[in-house]
């Protein structure tokens, strides 16, 4: 940095890395990703290994950093392995929601008016159902499984993306470059996928990142109710559920998974918010003080 340079303006260098939201967001989300990938290596022990009677409900100590649960299993190991379920569910369900939402939104925004009207009415119908009841209904009618949770979360989470994509597509389709593409005789499909969709990507990426956090929260909630991951799969939500009766005698049982969920959601929200300010042209309004 040159001498005399204003420190406030020159957020240069690696601009992504110095952003006050992006950096912690990146650290948390990348760290969690690594943790999940390398869980068997990182975890101090087997999450399912039962301890001896003396080891049951042991407080955090040198041998079990975060203590043990009712069956003497190491909480730290379970926490590390639980991250896999949370991230998997978070990402897969968001992927489903975003793919579906983008398809619906793009079709509504670029298609003829009747398609738009039909798709948006459908979206409104979906939005009118309280999401959590829909999920509970679907999940409780069948045998709980992770795959089901991911599908259900995905199928109930696309409406926001669809509306966002449609709105953006409606404004993009009025732009001259879209008119020029039509004027060159490109088919509607080519115009939508080749010209409008690439310009929607920043919006979509941001929307996806911001939704991962809430999907993880929803998974924990379902697992807490016993409708998500089933034993022996470890999940943060089910860990809290198991620890909920021992808040005084075994405070570590529910506290650590709770913190893990909070940190994850925070990380993805910071990342999404930071990306929004970077990628979304309307977000770059920092530095003005109105």
């Amino acid at each position, binding site marked *: 940095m040159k001498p005399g340079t204003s420190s406030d303006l020159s957020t240069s260098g*690696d601009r992504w890395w110095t952003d006050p939201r992006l950096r912690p967001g990146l650290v948390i989300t990348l760290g969690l990703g690594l943790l999940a990938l390398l869980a068997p290596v990182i975890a101090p022990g087997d999450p399912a290994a039962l301890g001896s009677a003396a080891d049951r409900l042991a407080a955090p100590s040198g041998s079990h950093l975060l203590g043990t649960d009712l069956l003497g299993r190491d909480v730290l190991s379970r926490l590390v392995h639980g991250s896999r379920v949370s991230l998997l569910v978070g990402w897969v369900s968001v992927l489903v929601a975003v793919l579906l939402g983008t398809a619906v939104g793009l079709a509504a925004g670029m298609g003829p008016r009747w398609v738009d009207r039909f798709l948006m009415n459908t979206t409104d119908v979906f939005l009118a159902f309280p999401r959590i009841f829909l999920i509970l209904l679907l999940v409780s009618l069948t045998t709980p499984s992770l795959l089901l949770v991911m599908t259900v979360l995905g199928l109930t989470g696309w409406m926001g993306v669809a509306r966002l994509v449609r709105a953006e597509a409606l404004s993009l389709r009025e732009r001259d470059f879209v008119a020029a593409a039509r*004027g060159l005789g*490109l088919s509607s499909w080519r115009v939508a996928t080749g010209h409008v969709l690439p*310009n929607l990507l920043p919006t979509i990426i941001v929307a996806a990142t911001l939704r991962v956090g809430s999907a993880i929260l929803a998974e924990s909630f379902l697992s807490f109710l016993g409708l998500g991951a089933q034993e022996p799969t470890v999940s943060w939500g089910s860990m809290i559920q198991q620890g909920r009766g021992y808040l005084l005698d075994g405070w570590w049982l529910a506290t650590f998974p709770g913190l893990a969920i909070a940190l994850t959601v925070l990380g993805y929200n910071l990342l999404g918010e930071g990306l929004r300010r970077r990628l979304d042209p309307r977000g770059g309004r920092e530095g003005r003080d109105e």
Partner: protein
Amino acid sequence: MSDLLRVENLRVSFPGPGPESGTKILTGADLVIGPGEAIALVGPSGCGKSLLTRALLGLLPDGADWTGTIRWRGEQLRDPRGRNWRKVRGEGMALVLQEPQTSLNPVLSVGDQIAETVRVHSGVSRSEARGRAVSLLAEMLVPDPSEKADCYPHQLSGGMRQRVLLAAAMACDPDLLIADEPTTALDVTVQREILALINRVRRDRGMALLFITHDAELVPLVATRRAEMSGGRIITHNHLDRPAVLNAADDSLSREPSGGAFIRPAGEKSPVLKARGLVAGYGPVRTAACPRAPVDGVDIDLIPGRALGLAGESGCGKTTLARALSRHLIPVEGTIELEGEDFLSFRGSRLQARRRRVQMLFQDPAGSLNPRQVVGRALSEAVGNNDPVRAADLLTEVGLFRELASRYPHELSGGQRQRVSLARCLAADPGVLIADEPTSALDMGSRNRILSLLMRTMERRGLALLLISHDFGVLHAICDRVDVMYGGVVVESYRVVERSRNRHPYTLSMMAAAPASLNRGQRWWLDAGKGLQKRSGPSPAGCPLAGQCPLQKPHCINELPPLVEVAEGHFLRCPEAGEGGP
């Protein structure tokens, strides 16, 4: 210290990754502005003028490095987010930008927007702020200010929006107004009004002005001193005499086409595109409230190798007409015949193939290229078979280096983008090219080069060109025939060689904004002190000019005069034209 603003050795660069990495935009700019002084800063587009204004306001984009000193009333400004600088931004300087449309919030009424600024600065009550807003609008000569205050930005014309922005800028009672190309997006006539207004407000308020423009000809109209920007420095400071009378300067392109250099023999080819009785508009047209459509019964013939000019101010329907002719907007009534076939009947793949024959060159080259597509990709897609060789040939044809094929639009200058847009049109091998104000977003230098490129292309390829512009200098230099449009109808159609003194009052008043395009015989209009005066709103059924026409007769209000051939090849929609002259 008596300076209001003193900038010394200001350098701005963009280090780090990113498209502009390593570029030094400002390399040591110095500028001094005294209280009440009017300075014009001139330079071509892309020379860093806008960056300078942002630096002055402490609003540089993230990632810009700057050094140098900026003093306001002798006090050095260091921290863009600090209290001092914020105070200067809020109370010392005000900024007015080029594009009034994007600077205003579309969902708030303009009165609310001005009142909000008033409240932020003086903390008065809501109703008091509202009153201030109305009186500011009145100061900016907005007619019916209290009614206009309730309007939303889209309900106002470009000139009105610019007045609203000025009013908002005046809300904090600034000592320095920074006007960054405030009139570039406007028509000539409106442009002159806004310049006059800026002059008057500055005088009345004793405010200093930094007027930034690429158009050197505007300088004497507003400034007492002139600074030029080039190569990242501000190089000359000329003291001008007192501001000259407002008088639009000659355009280098406007000359008397006496030699007929661009005039080809008439009537040998049949039109490629023939439109009859076009009625078009967005949404429902010809409603009870507004019985005339934005385009209401227009006939157009486009002949290969010839240029037809379409003149008119914004809002006269020329862009709607262009969109209808290229089938981006389906006309409500009328027929369009393309190479002998009914253009409007095409559907599906046949439409996709045939519409390539009619290409449109848009006004804003930045918006007409897909920002996420490199130039080469855009061109090969336009050719249709993804042939990179053909794409490179097209770049050469429009005078660009082949290397530009790997660039993204934002890495090009305005003139280069417009050339790329033209190349993309040519890729479709069109028979008709519709150019909608193709140069109004460019600076003077690129403007003339693009126009001569257009003309050469038209002649070489035998294209039928429809050139839309409000600049008669340009139209007379390039076109064979000019149609003048107002209120959705063609009010006059004349051959450029024919320089009759007999012109439609609207044509004359538009020409008078750039007096060079009036010939000797037509100057009576200026001398007689004629001009349009708004006396009443337009009448729905009569001549669109009724209510502001100096030659108006009672019958003008109720019936639309027909377009009659008054001399060979000269059509006029006004029985009174020519009356009142010498």
